[in-house]
């Protein structure tokens, strides 16, 4: 996955992501594609979750999956999560859960609960950084005020790092793939450098849905695992999602 939050010159925040899923889940030799990724695309839906006929939050989701990976509380915050791989992974959390140690939260239920119940950027940030979890993860959170955006790097037990926007220091966007931002990505899976190169080339003056979509359409940020691209602007309560394809030549991840 690739997620980013960027702030334009007027202080407006944009949050976008490519959702990549299906690595090693069956390679279709004939069509040069991942089987599960192909089958996930028709299941992508945008959902308006309502209570008393009023929107509580918006999400881009997969039918049958009750948790959330991409969502927005209009006017309040936006949230995406990226997978964080670790030896101390979710299978250990599941094992603990089965054995009766149930103090941790399931990742996608936590994100859903935050989207449903948190009422501010700060509350969402606290919940995502402090709740014990069954699996490690990256949470990419955007608010509705200048400077409100961060990448929360989580292990199962604790928050390892919060990487925030810092306009004064020239950090007008944060971009997260599937590696700790303070370490080099795996050399065969470097989507961070091409993504950042395109963001830097775009410049803060020109950031918009259109230019962010351009960044997320550039290979290898766009790859064979990319299921959908979602674009969110919290101040406009605007969420757009598009199914993606990566024609050959295109890296499988």
């Amino acid at each position, binding site marked *: 996955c690739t997620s980013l939050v960027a702030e334009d010159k007027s202080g407006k925040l944009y949050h976008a992501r490519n959702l990549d899923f299906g690595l090693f889940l069956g390679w279709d030799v004939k069509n040069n594609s991942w089987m599960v990724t192909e089958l996930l695309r028709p299941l992508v839906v945008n959902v*308006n979750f309502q209570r008393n006929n009023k929107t509580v939050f918006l999400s881009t989701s997969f039918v049958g999956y009750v948790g959330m990976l991409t969502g927005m509380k209009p006017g309040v915050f936006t949230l995406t999560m990226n997978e964080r791989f670790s030896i101390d*992974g979710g299978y250990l959390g*599941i094992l603990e859960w089965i054995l009766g140690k149930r103090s941790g939260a399931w990742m996608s239920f936590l994100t859903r609960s935050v989207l449903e119940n948190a009422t501010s950027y700060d509350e969402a940030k606290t919940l995502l950084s402090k709740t014990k979890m069954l*699996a490690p993860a990256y949470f990419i959170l955007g608010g509705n005020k200048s400077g409100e955006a961060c990448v929360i790097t989580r292990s199962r037990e604790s928050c390892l790092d919060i990487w925030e926007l810092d306009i004064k220091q020239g950090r007008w966007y944060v971009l997260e793939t599937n590696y700790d931002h303070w370490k080099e990505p795996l050399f065969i899976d470097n989507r961070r450098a091409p993504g950042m190169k395109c963001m830097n080339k775009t410049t803060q003056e020109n950031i918009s849905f259109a230019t962010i979509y*351009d960044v997320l359409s550039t*290979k290898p940020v766009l790859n064979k695992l990319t299921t959908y691209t979602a674009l969110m602007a919290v101040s406009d309560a605007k969420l757009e999602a*598009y199914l993606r394809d990566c*024609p050959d030549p295109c*890296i499988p991840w």
Partner: protein
Amino acid sequence: QDVPPYTEDCRSGTYPPSGQTFRGTVPWYKVNLDQAPHERWQQLISDKKIQLTALIQSIKNLAKSIFPSGKLIEIVDNDLPLLIGTLPAQYGEEMKGIADASGLPLGEVILFNIFYEVFTV
């Protein structure tokens, strides 16, 4: 770049989406949180039952290719549903509703919903 990872020059003019990298738009649905959790996803499942069944079947086929005995699917179908009572209440009920509406075994719906935890290694 003609070799993997086929890095391109930064794209421009791709929005509004069209062309070879665009597969289609994403439909909108409403989910009413005032409804009982069991009922919330009925409309969506009814519209996408065939696609959801195809995905779950594909995952089962992959599992069978790794464990040809079918033991893994047996565990998913017979033992995973035992977890349902331990999951946060409304999500467990929603999964039961999805299983009922789609006709898929509850264990397979649970597996789909905990895929993230399974795949983070």
